[in-house]
Each structure stands twice: as C-alpha cells, then as structure tokens.
C-alpha cells in the first residue's frame, strides 16, 4: 500500500544536521539567559550602573567562613537595604514560606492568618527535602518565596548570592526574648539578616522495646551504626554534613568541618564500612519511622523523638522513645533560623511573621508539634517539663545554653573542601 519507509536517519541527513550545529549554537548562545536561573545576580543592580555601585562590594574570590572563632558581620549589598520603618503590611498577600516538611505547626500558620486577618493574608507553605535542593530552588528565582527556614552554614551563599534581605529591627521587637547568644550570633553578627528558630543537637534516637540496651551506656555510642547487631533496622540522616560529622566524631576527631585529606579519607572508608556492615537506610523521617517501628534506631535531631510521640500508633507507650546525645554537650549542635528572602513580594508582612514566630506563646505551641526547642528566655527547660512537653524519658533532648561553648557546629566549607564532601556523599549514596 505505502512505499517502503525511508530509513528515518540517513548519513547524509546526519551530516546536514550537524552542519547546522555551529550556527545553531550561535543562535542558542544569543538566547541564553544573561544570568542563568541558578546562579546569583550581580551585586550591583543594572538600574544604577555607576562605577561606584559596582566597586562597593569587595572582589569575590572566596566567601568568608563564619565560625565561633571567627564571627562574621556580613556586608549589606548596595541596592539591598532593609525596608524602611513604619510601613503597613501588604494587603491580600500570599506569604510564601519555605521549610522542611513537618517542621512548623500548621495551626500556628493558621493563627497568623487569623491575627492578621485585617490584611487578608494567606500563608502558603512549600517544603524541600534537603538544603541543597532548597538553595537551588531559591536561586532559580522561579518562586517568590518570602520567608525561609534555613540553616547558618549557607549564610555566605545567601548573602553573596543576593538571595536574602537584611532585616529592619523595628519590626521585630520580640527579639528581646531571645537568648543573648542569638542576638549577636557568630554567623550573623548584629542579627542583620536572621532571627533564630530552633536549637538542636544531633544524636541517636531509638525505641526501647525494640532495642533494649541503653545506647548511651556504651563507650562509643556512635559505634552502634557499625554494629552488626542491629543491621537492617537502623537509619542515618539524609544529610551529608551530619553523617560525615558523626563519622568523624566516632573516629575520635573533633573537627567536623575538617578539610584534612587524611581525615576525609578515613571518613570515607568508615562510611562505606557502615554500609556493608549495618545496611542503614538514609532518611530524615526517623520521627515517624521509629515510633511506627519501621526502624528501631536512627541518627536523629533532638526534636525528632519529642515530636515522635505524636506519631506513635495507638497503644504504644510514649515512654519507649529514647534519645541520646553527648551529655557534656560535645556533639553536633546547631540552630536553624528564619530569614526574609529577597525574591519575596511581601517584605513587610514577612517581618511581621518573623516577629510573630518569636512570641513565646506561639513558640510554645509550635514546639508542641515540632518538638524542637526555641532559644527563648521564657521557655526554660523547667517550663517545658512542667508543661508536659518534655517527658522524663526524653530529658536528654534538652539543649543547654552552655553547650554552645563546647559543641561542634557544622560550618560552611571552602569551595574545594565542599567538593570533597560532596564526592564522599555521592559515593556513600551510591551504595559503595
């Protein structure tokens, strides 16, 4: 009926097509974005265009790394001044909030909407699975996120990537309730860009009826991840920095941000050993897996077991949940913060939101769901225990202020070292 089909691709056609390649490439390169969606906009805005505007930011060869020994006061990029005081919040705003899943109580968001009902604000929560993904989406500029729940080892990228808006402190009087440390944190001197959200330690959580031993009683509790005894029933966090840090600590090191090739090589080998010995899952969902019994033990953050009480199936005793972190505070310690993202359309409302989250009743209500402790003076550990938020079996989950002097925060890394860490993580996640 029809003639034989000509071969879809003949050699001549292929050559013709590839000859189109070079002019085609020229066409494409002229169509390319001046600034790819996932790379930072130049610090000087196109509108000013004057030589002075371009020169006011130091030439960037390396982003400064903030640490407790080296606190950093970030520059305020020209063109990115804080909003002026006394502005009214935007009307009919959709406040876009970007966070981990299950890391803020939705009722608290609804209450915010109710409190600012005069402005007809709607809070829309989007979630990310891990921080690199979050950063990529924020950079892409596709969504005008207003508020980000992020962590301090990305501060440099946020500031120099022009992704974050400096705060006008007039809108955030509740900061006075925050612990002293966080009114001048090392990662953001003078709290120019951030307000603290939660504090936490990283440790080990488990269900006592599935794992009867007291993990904390071991000489080296982190060794449980290299123990064949619980193979197949354990998990580590889906967070490259956390797993690497834990491995370094397990091997006796104390610099969880080490760039030493020997340390990193040893860490890589240990992590691969862990894979073959105990076959861990890699997930941040310990706060549901352990209560449900899908996992018996997991590396987790201090709030996970507290919030885990909420996810227990009916009939399981909440007293079975346990958490351990180094009792001297010499473990991984950290905090998350709230910030106003530059791409957002509602900066004034975002400031109000930050202030709202620092209110002690709100923080308390939020804590009852997420389980993580906010660094507020009014929320002492005694108050938490008295209010039943912190059961006795989870007393180890409290974060003490003095631990911030001795603990090991996870810091931003120099670019080359970061590449090394990523390679280790990739290898780990490939299954060795």
């Amino acid at each position: 009926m029809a003639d034989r089909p000509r071969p879809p691709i003949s050699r001549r056609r292929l050559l013709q097509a590839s000859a189109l390649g070079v002019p085609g490439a020229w066409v494409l390169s002229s169509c390319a974005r001046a600034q790819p969606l996932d790379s930072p906009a130049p610090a000087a805005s196109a509108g000013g265009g004057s030589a002075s505007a371009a020169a006011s930011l130091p030439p960037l060869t390396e982003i400064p790394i903030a640490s407790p020994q080296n606190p950093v006061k970030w520059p305020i990029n020209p063109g990115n001044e804080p909003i002026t005081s006394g502005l009214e919040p935007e009307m009919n705003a959709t406040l876009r909030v970007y966070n981990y899943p299950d890391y803020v109580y939705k009722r608290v968001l609804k209450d915010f909407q109710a409190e600012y009902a005069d402005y007809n604000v709607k809070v829309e929560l989007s979630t990310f699975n891990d921080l690199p993904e979050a950063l990529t989406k924020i950079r892409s500029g596709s969504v005008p996120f207003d508020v980000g729940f992020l962590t301090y080892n990305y501060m440099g990228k946020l500031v120099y990537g022009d992704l974050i808006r400096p705060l006008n402190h007039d809108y955030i009087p509740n900061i006075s309730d925050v612990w002293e440390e966080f009114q001048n944190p090392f990662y953001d001197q003078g709290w120019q860009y951030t307000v603290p959200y939660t504090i936490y330690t990283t440790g080990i959580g488990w269900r006592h009826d599935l794992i009867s031993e007291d993990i904390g009683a071991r000489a080296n509790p982190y060794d449980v991840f290299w123990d064949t005894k619980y193979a197949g029933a354990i998990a580590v966090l889906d967070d490259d920095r956390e797993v690497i840090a834990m491995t370094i600590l397990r091997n006796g090191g104390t610099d969880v941000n080490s760039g030493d090739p020997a340390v990193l090589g040893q860490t890589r080998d240990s992590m691969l050993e862990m894979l073959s010995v105990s076959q861990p899952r890699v997930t941040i969902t310990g706060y549901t897996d352990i209560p449900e019994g899908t996992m018996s033990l997991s590396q987790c953050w201090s709030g996970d077991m507290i919030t885990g009480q909420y996810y227990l199936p009916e009939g399981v005793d909440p007293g079975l949940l346990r958490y351990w972190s180094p009792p001297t505070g010499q473990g991984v310690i950290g905090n998350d913060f709230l910030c106003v993202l530059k791409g957002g359309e509602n900066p004034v409302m975002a400031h109000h939101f930050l202030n709202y989250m620092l209110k002690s009743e709100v923080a308390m209500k939020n804590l009852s769901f997420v389980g993580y402790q906010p660094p507020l003076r009014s929320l002492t550990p005694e108050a938490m225990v008295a209010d039943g938020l912190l059961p006795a079996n989870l007393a180890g989950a409290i974060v003490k202020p003095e631990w911030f002097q001795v603990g090991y925060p996870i810091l931003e890394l120099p670019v080359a070292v970061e590449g090394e860490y990523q390679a280790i993580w990739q290898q780990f996640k490939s299954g060795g």
Partner: protein
Amino acid sequence: MPDRTSRFIWPILGLPGIVWIALFFLVPLYVVFCVTFGTVDPIFRSPVPAWNPLEWQFEQVVVVWDRLVGPNNFYLPPVLRTLLYVVVAVVACMIIAFPVAYFTARYAGRHRALILALLVAPFWISYMMRMLAWINLLQPDGLVNSIITLGGIIPLEVNWLSGNPFTVVMGLIYGYVPYMLLPLFAALDRISPSLIEAGRDLGASGFELFRRVILPMSVPGIVAGTLLIALPMMGDYFTSDMLSKSPNTSMIGNLINLSIATPGQSGQAGALLILVLLVLLAPMIWYTRSNAKAEVRS
C-alpha cells in the same frame, strides 16, 4: 480536480508538531550537552553552559568516566545493580505476563472484553498510588506480615521496607508488568488459530506446539514488551526511593536525581544521563524502526 494549495496543506498541518518537537525535545537535549560539556563557576559552583560545540570541555565526562572505570569507581555498583534489577524484573514480568496474555488471547472467550479492561486498568491507576498501596501493605503491622505470620502466630515477620532489594525489585515488577502485557497480548492475538489447528492436525503435542509455533511467533511481542519496560526502568529512581531509601538499593536514576539538586553537580548529572542515553540509543532506535515497519505491515 486538485487545487494548487492542496500540496501545501499537509506541510502546514504538520509544521506545528515539528516545531514543537524541535523546540521542546531537541533543544533541551542540546542544552543538556552544553551544560555537561561546560564549566563550573568557581565561587558558587553553578554550571556555566558552553553553547558553542567548539568550546566544549569534557572534564565532567572525565569525572563520571573515572567514577565508572577508574580506581575509585563508585558509580559502577549502582550501574551493575540497575542492570541486575532490570534483568530480573523483566524476566519476572515475562514469566507473569505470558500466561496471562496467552489466556486472554486464546481462552478468554466471552469474558475477553472484561478481562482486557481489568488488565488495562493499571494504566489509569496512578503509579504512585500503586506504590503507596504496597508501602501500606508492607508496613511492619501491615497486611503482608499479618498473612505470612498467620496473624502473629508464626514468627516470620520481615521488615520489608528496610532497604530490602527484594522489595524494590518486586515494586518494579508490580509497576511495569502491565506494560509488558499489552504487546504480548497483541502478538499472541495475531497468531491465527488455524495455524494452531494445523499444527495439532500434524500431530504436535501441546508442548511442541508451544515451542515450535507459538513461541517463535510471539517473539516480536516479547521483544517489544521487553524494550518497553526495560528502557524506562533504567531511569527509575522513585521506586527505590519510596520502597527502600537505602543506598544499598540505589539505581542509576538515584545517582542522577542526587546530582541534579546538588550545587555544582548538574554537569555530572548531565554526563551520567548522556552515558545512559548512549547505552540505550541502539535499543531505542531499533524499537522505533521496528515500529515503523509494523505500521507499514498493518
């Protein structure tokens, strides 16, 4: 009498489709090449694509190649694992689908329409929903454990979702077997019953009939079905993610998915992707050409 414009109507009708495919299929693939063979911004580690093929650099490919065959070739285990899972899953799908397709084609009789409809049903039931179904069933206190322990009597409980490769392969089989069924059914359906009768009249036993008549004639269907599920399976990452979350069951798709979201690694993801596509290129072209022939034949 054909009017002058009639010759141009067909190209005009076809042009939107061609433009669309060029713009949204070819160009994206070319962009992947440009990103993979481009460079990386030193400060923010975001990829800088190289549009001109003459400026292409191959360091990302070298990195990926090194991780495949070099001294520290940690990409190799997921690649081998993927191949293993795909082969096992395809064979299992074949073993499951063949009898079912055969039954529907030859023995279903009056109920054929109904059975076909039921077989086709998974196509419009969301893949995610079907995976969700299994996550629920495989919970420690789920139906599967209840059944194999006979309600808690026999201590045979298995933790299915703890990174068990068996679970992942079963998930793949469950997800893709309907896509094997239809091509097999079509091929078996085409076998004329008179051929079977003739074989029987000539004294062939049931088994010989199968081996010498039915099996050879169903080969196009087998091959079509195999390609139709093996190729997409190569890029699958969500099955392992949902049913396992363990690095010990990670597939090539997981590697690509991990690299894409990590700053500075998009080029590597692109390189991996290109490598995968190169490997799959021959089967893909073969499949499409055999389809073109099939079109003509019918």
